[in-house]
């Protein structure tokens, strides 16, 4: 059972450790898990794993994009009409916020690589703040849709007075009239609108959790010039969330 006995046999065979640090080997830095030989191997594995996971994410969203394509081809006039109900200014604003947050995420990676712990934390916090701004804007957008009865599927046309949680002073007035001026099947558009943006918002929420976790690890001083993998792959995830929005925005808000 002793570590002495094992390290004599072979340096590679020694040092199984469930927590990823290795106490009895010179060439194993603290961050290197027991089953990797070199930090490069560990970094490349993490990168490949994340990219594979992102492929999975794309396929996950692809179902919604296909549904969008199918429904758009069935009901082009409904999609055209309903898209004008969305607030383009808010959508564009959110797009800028997310693009900016992708830049700060990339800068956080760079700062870690340069060993600038404080800069890393700063960029991570700005990224997290952008994510909250995005969700805040979405909250008001959703609120407006609720007020106007622009709801998915069978709830379409049933307005819900949510003025108590969405103050009118912010410019959202309750409109309890069902939107009868919209073409038939606009309800399908809003089903897809809420599913697509909802699933995307869920990814933003998960991203906030991940970024806060990375920020705390950075505060604890876990990252260095030699070990920045978690920041790197968290940023990769954040870029994907941004990328999906880059497609959602024109598809839902802009094209006629």
């Amino acid at each position: 059972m002793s570590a002495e006995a094992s390290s004599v046999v072979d340096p590679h065979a020694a040092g199984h450790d469930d927590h990823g640090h290795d106490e009895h080997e010179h060439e194993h830095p603290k961050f290197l898990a027991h089953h990797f030989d070199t930090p490069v191997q560990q970094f490349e594995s993490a990168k490949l794993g994340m990219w594979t996971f992102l492929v999975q994410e794309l396929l996950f969203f692809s179902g919604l994009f296909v549904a969008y394509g199918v429904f758009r081809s069935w009901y082009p006039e409904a999609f055209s009409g309903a898209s004008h109900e969305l607030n383009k200014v808010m959508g564009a604003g959110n797009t800028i916020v997310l693009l900016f947050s992708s830049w700060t995420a990339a800068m956080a990676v760079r700062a870690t690589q340069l060993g600038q712990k404080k800069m890393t934390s700063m960029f991570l916090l700005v990224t997290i703040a952008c994510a909250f701004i995005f969700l805040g804007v979405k909250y008001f957008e959703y609120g407006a849709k609720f007020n106007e009865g622009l709801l998915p599927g069978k709830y379409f046309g049933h307005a819900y007075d949510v003025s108590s949680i969405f103050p009118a002073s912010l410019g959202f007035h309750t409109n309890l009239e069902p939107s009868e001026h919209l073409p038939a099947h606009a309800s399908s558009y809003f089903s897809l609108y809420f599913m697509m943006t909802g699933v995307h918002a869920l990814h933003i929420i998960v991203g906030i959790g991940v970024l806060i976790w990375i920020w705390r690890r950075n505060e604890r001083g876990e990252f260095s010039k030699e070990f920045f993998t978690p920041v790197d792959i968290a940023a990769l995830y954040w870029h994907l969330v941004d990328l999906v929005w880059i497609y959602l925005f024109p598809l839902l808000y802009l094209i006629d």
Partner: protein
Amino acid sequence: MGAVSTTAPARSHADTPDPNENYLKATRGIASWLFTLDHKRIGIMYLVLVLIAFALGGTFALLVRLELFTRGRTLMDADMYNRMFTLHGVVMVFLFIIPSIPAALGNFVLPIQLGAKDVAFPRLNLMSLYIYAFGACFAVYSMVDGAVDTGWTFYTPYSTTTNSAVIPMVLGAFIMGFSSILTGVNFLVTVHKLRAPGQTWTRLSLFTWALYATSIIQVLATPVLAITLLLLTMERFLGLGIFDPKLGGDPVLFQHFFWFYSHPAVYIMIVPGMGVVNEILSTFSRRAIVGYMFVAMSSLALALLGFLVWGHHLFVSGMSEYATMVFSALTFLVAIPSGVKVFNWVATLWKGSIRLESPMLYALSFIFLFTIGGLTGLFLGVLAIDVHLHDTYFVVAHFHYVMVGGTVMGFVGGLHYWWPKITGKLYDEKMAKFAWFFVFIGFNVTFVAQFIMGSRGMPRRYYDYLPEFEIFHKTSTIGSWILGFGFLTMAVMFVMSLKSGKKSTRNPWGSAALEWQTATPPPLANFVKVPTLTRGPYDYHLATEEELSEK
């Protein structure tokens, strides 16, 4: 040594398990299992869960067959019967067969075959196990809460209108899907990045190749199921209307989405079984697999083609004629990689020194039964014939020949083959052969009868039947008892092995493959010294006497 330990958090050496100790004894206590990061223990925990699911799904199957033993009501009413066949399907597909070979056997064997110490992401591996268990809880909750009567395919509009417990079951499948995706990601990276020195791509075992191809499908197809099931849940929950014609949606769209996953999923189920067959055939005919690269690439070809044929489930659902023709043609292409495998296996047997031990009996059963299952699939791919055979017992028999005759035979064969390596114990070979005999006979009796009645027009999933089908249903039910008896015998045999089995030697089968070169059971770090490979797993002509010896 020990120079770093001043900076690393000091932990007493007594806490650190010895990597060269037998993995079953290196650490002790229930927590050492529940929080283990060792791929071998995670594999075993998967194995236990998967076998429980198999027993459960098998019980449902026996009840379905028992109900059909006589015309009219035998045991349960029609509503209960609908729930039974649905539960049989859901449990067997999502809880048993998808994780069976990759997550249970693959988890144990894959890193050892690569010469690695573990999978690339051990914590993610443990997380996959818990996600699977969490999803399974939802499925069990659904069963307690009145279960589901839609069939395992959850077709809309019935699944959005029935008042059975669809949402928990669908969410269970949704959650288990992520377990499958994460296992796929883990295996892909492991194969790419954790191969031992000298473990080149052309020296990988064909089981590894099969798991690699399977992982690709798991990563690419499962998320589509996830979003489909999410849409289905929201359809029930919020009345989304995507699949509801009343609200401008289309139920056929659900079928497209569902089969875009579920047809590739068929290859998630069968390709690992094919992988196991390679290992067993090579070991028990003491010969290299003929056409190694063809067999390896045929796994990838199946992974690719699997994505292009989903439409053949919708030939009678309302698709354009041109689309059906394309899907039909693509379906026939699947026969090519499948044929490559079968012919290469048969060629491997030629002039091999064949030993008919229990794993080999299952591997040979696989070839025989899978060939029948595969060829009957071609009948169904023919447009005109499919109109007649669609939704009959012919389809049921076809996919059971592939799923049970193929995957389950591969899984059980692999379980026999690696059992000594996993547990360190031998089992009673005579009893294993006895069990095999009943499994093989019982399976064929059950499903040949279904081929015949299906071709005569007996629809699947019906509660009752016309008098002319009685003889076939009776035969099929009797076959299910023989099959059940076979599996029961096997279970007793394995339990006896655990309790009082003889200690296994290092290499009881005299195999040249890498996993048999390390101790039995393997040490915690899989190998005492990281192996450097100079040959492939099937190179019997290059293996030394010492490597092939039992000790």
